[in-house]
């Protein structure tokens, strides 16, 4: 995985984080978006499928991607691989959002290059903080 070098971290603090949320469930997208926006005041981009997500990531270049695991057609891991294979998106940290919590999978995901794994249901009040902590952002919001 790639990590932003230290000076970029500091720079980041000054800018509002922009997060791309990829999840096929409308409700969850909404709640997550609302959580990040209302609670943390971040920018949020939405994508309802892996394919759409890759496109948006490529064009919008978000600071991080929140990726659902269980999606039809292209699932989380596949999307992840594709993001990492794509030169324009491979640098963006990806956090998996999943309801399944199995140990060996975690390892697999880590090897695939995921930055962090967050669990559903998440606490909407702390979601932003969790993301910041996972990505090593100091007080990101």
């Amino acid at each position, binding site marked *: *995985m790639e990590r932003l070098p230290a000076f970029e971290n500091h720079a980041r603090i000054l800018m509002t984080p922009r997060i791309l949320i990829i999840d096929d*469930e409308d*409700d*969850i997208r*909404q*709640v*997550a978006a*609302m*959580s990040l926006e*209302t*609670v943390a005041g971040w920018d949020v981009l939405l994508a309802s499928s892996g394919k759409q997500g890759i496109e948006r990531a490529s064009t919008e270049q978000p600071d991080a991607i929140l990726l659902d695991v*269980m999606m039809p057609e292209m699932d989380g891991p596949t999307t992840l*691989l594709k993001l*990492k*294979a794509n030169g324009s998106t491979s640098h963006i940290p990806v956090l998996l959002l999943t*309801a*399944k*919590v*199995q*140990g*060996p999978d975690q*390892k*697999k995901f*880590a*090897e*695939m*290059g995921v930055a962090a794994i967050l669990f*559903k*249901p*998440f*606490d*909407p*009040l702390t979601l932003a903080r969790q993301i910041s902590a996972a990505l090593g952002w100091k007080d990101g919001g």
Partner: protein
Amino acid sequence: MTWLRDRLPSTIFFAVALLLSAYGGMVLLLGWGGTFSAAVITWACAQVLLIALCVHSFLDASRQDEAEWQVQQVAQLQRSILDSAGPMILATDLEGNLLIFNPAAERMLGYRNHEVLGQLNAHDLFPEGELERVGQLLVSRLDRSPAIDLESVSPELKHYVQYVTSFPVSRVRGFEILCRRKDATTFPAMVYLSAVRNTEGALTGLLAIATDLTATKRAEHALRESEERYRDLFENSQEMIATLSPRAKYLYVNPAWQTCFGKSAAAFESLISFEAAFPPEMQANAASLFDRALRGERIDRANLRVQDSNGMYRELEASLSCRQDRGEPVSVRCIFRDVTAQYQRERRLAMQLAVSQVVGESTTSDEALPAMLESLGTNLGFDMAGLWFVSSDHHCRYLAGWYAPDRACTEFHRDSIGRVLQKGKDLPGQIWAAESPCWIEDLQDDSNFLRAGSAKTDGLVTGWGVPVRVGNQVIAVVEFFSRQKQREDTEMMATVETVCASIGQFMARSAQESRLEELNRQKESILNSVADGIFGTDSAGRIVFVNPAAASMLGAHAFDLIGRTVHSVVHEERKGREKCSDQCRTGRAFLVREGTSGQDVFYRRNGASFPVEFSVTPMVEHNVAVGSVLSFRDISQRYALDRMKDEFVSTVSHELRTPLTSIRGSLGLLSTGLLGEMGEKASNLLRIAVNNSDRLVRLINDILDLERMQSGRAPLTYRSCDLEDLARQAIDAMTPMAEAAKVQLLLEAGPAQIEVDPDRLQQVLTNLLSNAIKFSPAGSQVAVSIERLLDGVTISVKDNGRGIPKDKLESIFDRFQQVDASDARQKGGTGLGLAICRTIVMQHGGRIWAERNADRGSTFRMFLPSVTREAEILRLGGNPASSMVSSTSVLVCDENPETRASLAESLRQNGYSVLEASSGDEAVVIARQTPVQAILLDMSLPSLHGWETLHLLRDDLKTASIPVVVLSAFGALNDPEVEKAADAWLEQPLETGSMLAALSRVLQVERQPSRVLLVEDDADLAKVILATFERAGVQVHHAPTQRKAMELCVSSRPDLLILDITLPDGDGFGLVDWLRQQQEMKQLPLVVYSAQDLNEGERKKLQLGHTEFLTKARVQPQDVETLVMSMLRVPQGANEVPLGWDGASPSL
């Protein structure tokens, strides 16, 4: 002259007479003259008269002489008779005085004549009382006593006088008497006694002529003895001896002969011929034998059979020969021997032999019994034989029958088949009741014989039978029938009864055998139909029995498996994989004496594996292990089910979680108030909704957790941990909650090192603390204490709350059990917390329980045992599910599609999952993106040289640590660079076995999670590094101090050390020194990560095993990771420098 002398007086007289007469004459003549004539005549007459007188007297004298001479002669004769006589001659007078005692008497009696005559009496010559005795004897024989005068006879001789006078003189009779010699010895003598009479005829004495009978007696005795001997022989001979005239008339028959034929000697003499003595059926035979003998043939051992007076049949062996005189037969000698007993014995033996042969040759009683009946029937000469057996319901049933084939008794046989006889009925019943043989001479006469009708049809006349016994019980009856009327033959029945004992034993044994067969069949059918696989082994662990299920599960034939050890059969097919270690469950299971059970993976013939649950039970007889039984069951289904369940559970939980996310999220956002104010009531409701959705989430988590733990899908990973640390962490985590509830958390404990799964244990501690806090009143304390015991550690959480009722102390650990339903719900518990705690503690092999405190509140205690290495391994090994499911993926990179396909196939067959790459590029890409455990790289790739690919792989962080097995087309590679980069290399043509072996070897190295100890006091840096390594799957322990570092070195034995030089309580140098002194540590790979560059001397001081030096400022954390990974890749102890590093300074 004597004559003359004797007659001298006469002669003189004569002479004188003569002279006178002459003178006278002359005178006359002269004187007369005239009358011559008258004178002359007168003188002549006178002369004549004188002469006559002279002559007369002369004659007289002569006569007298003659008489005297005669007398003398007689006396002489008498004397010479006496002298010369052999017998002794004694004469006594009536007084007994001895008058004559001849020389023979002298010799015999030892006396001299002069000693005896006139001195001894007759009685002196006999022993005391002998004379009397014999005298009495003699008199007693007399018919009458003679009328004589015995006055003058001595008393002793009276009898004798009587004796001799009782018969005429001419008839002298002898008698025996004992005589006594002078020396007092005695001898028998034969005495002829006669009377001595005088001229008047009066008895004057006795004359005895006696001979010494000693020799005679001896001879007689001898003769008698020898006669006796012969007579004795003949008379007492067992053998029958007869002599016959050439006309076949009996001349002599000895008693034995007489007894045999039951006739007296006289009867025999009256028989017309030899053969007349024999029964009619034998006569012809006997006659021919006689004729042959008569002709001069010597007959030896001819067989004859007779019936004696008792009706018993006797077998005889006859020898006949003829005595001839000058070619003419004089007599025929017959000697018969009774060989009945011998014959019976032989017959019995023959029958027993026949029966034994039958028993020996036949295996089933169906064959054997009729065969036995046949042999008995033929042997005994009967027409029909039958066997009845006594069944358990106390009836007699027909079991088998035989009849002579040419004379069938089908009707009778058929009649017998249907019959069921009670005790006492019919011949078998009778024999059974009486328990002894029975003979029916005429079947038609016996009213109890139910089968008389059919017997008549088949012409059977006589029947008999014997019981067949086993022990004291009659188990069967054998019967025989004959068309000829036969008289009862007790002997034959007795013989057959004895032989039938063998039959009885056979029947008993075959009954047992058939029972055994029955049992065996049952056992076999059970074992064959059982779905579990069953092996029976001998004491050496070699298979002796395989049931069909086992054979089919292992994909082999039973005969392939027998003789091999179980372990080799079930684990052998792990071709290429590592050999089973000593810890292999299945291997060990056969070494212990107690039964063991467990789970393992077995391999089929074709290499495919399947999970099993097995159990081994040793078979012990008399304290000796004679073998064991292994039963196993394919639990793939179960695993499949488990997997299905897991999938179900996780799917369901996922499905539940998804809407919950939205609910929770929405509610949560609403409750922040950021989206608008709402009334108090609304807020309240919202709060309720939020709490409950939280609770729902927790519930789902707990259920999932519990399910996973209980199904073994969440295995424990043991690590040596300090319980004090864990407790402190738990307390830290629960401090917010405690503060909110105004409860104080206390830790009363010291360090306690133990091997546990720290995460899980944390879960338990947190849970217990949470409960404690929930149920504690404000202002109270919750104390955590740790107590070290001999075999483990006890952790206690004590609260001062309401406490738990005694009857609920056990049940609260069950699912969804609350002490008080209302209470817990309020407190937001899920009801699963304690159940989860119990599962975790039990998985550790410990115990958890609750106690009521004496004063107030409860104490929850858990005991965790100190786990031994062995048990740990077994515990780890006993959960193959996890290892089963995550299969190893291997990337095969080969340009040649056929080679690639075949490699992939081999790998798949051995349980690997395979990714394929047709070029080096593709391989690198795949390796970067997909996690593979190993790469098989063909060096003969034209498009991309093999080692370029290798470089690429090693350069990329993601792929650097993946073990690569290189396949080379050329000989052994001499390229040192490739050697270093590749983990293993194989030559082509490729041997599957060696490829798999190499693969497993590199994977083995890979699989073991490497442990790295990071000694770093900078917490932030430590965190970063830790996070880095976590992704790489390396266990990293962090020690902020030297002391901690030492502790961890000892307790958790890292594979590599990352060392900061500057430490608060010492420095890296000190640590390295100490490590160098530890036996196991002095070769530890070391990465010195120092803030400043180190000089040569300092570096030397810090050398352990393979040591690298990195300066913090120059190097990124990920570089550390790369280096460490590459160092970990190489087996410990080797001192190779990894590719790209020259050891002095890093270069990127």
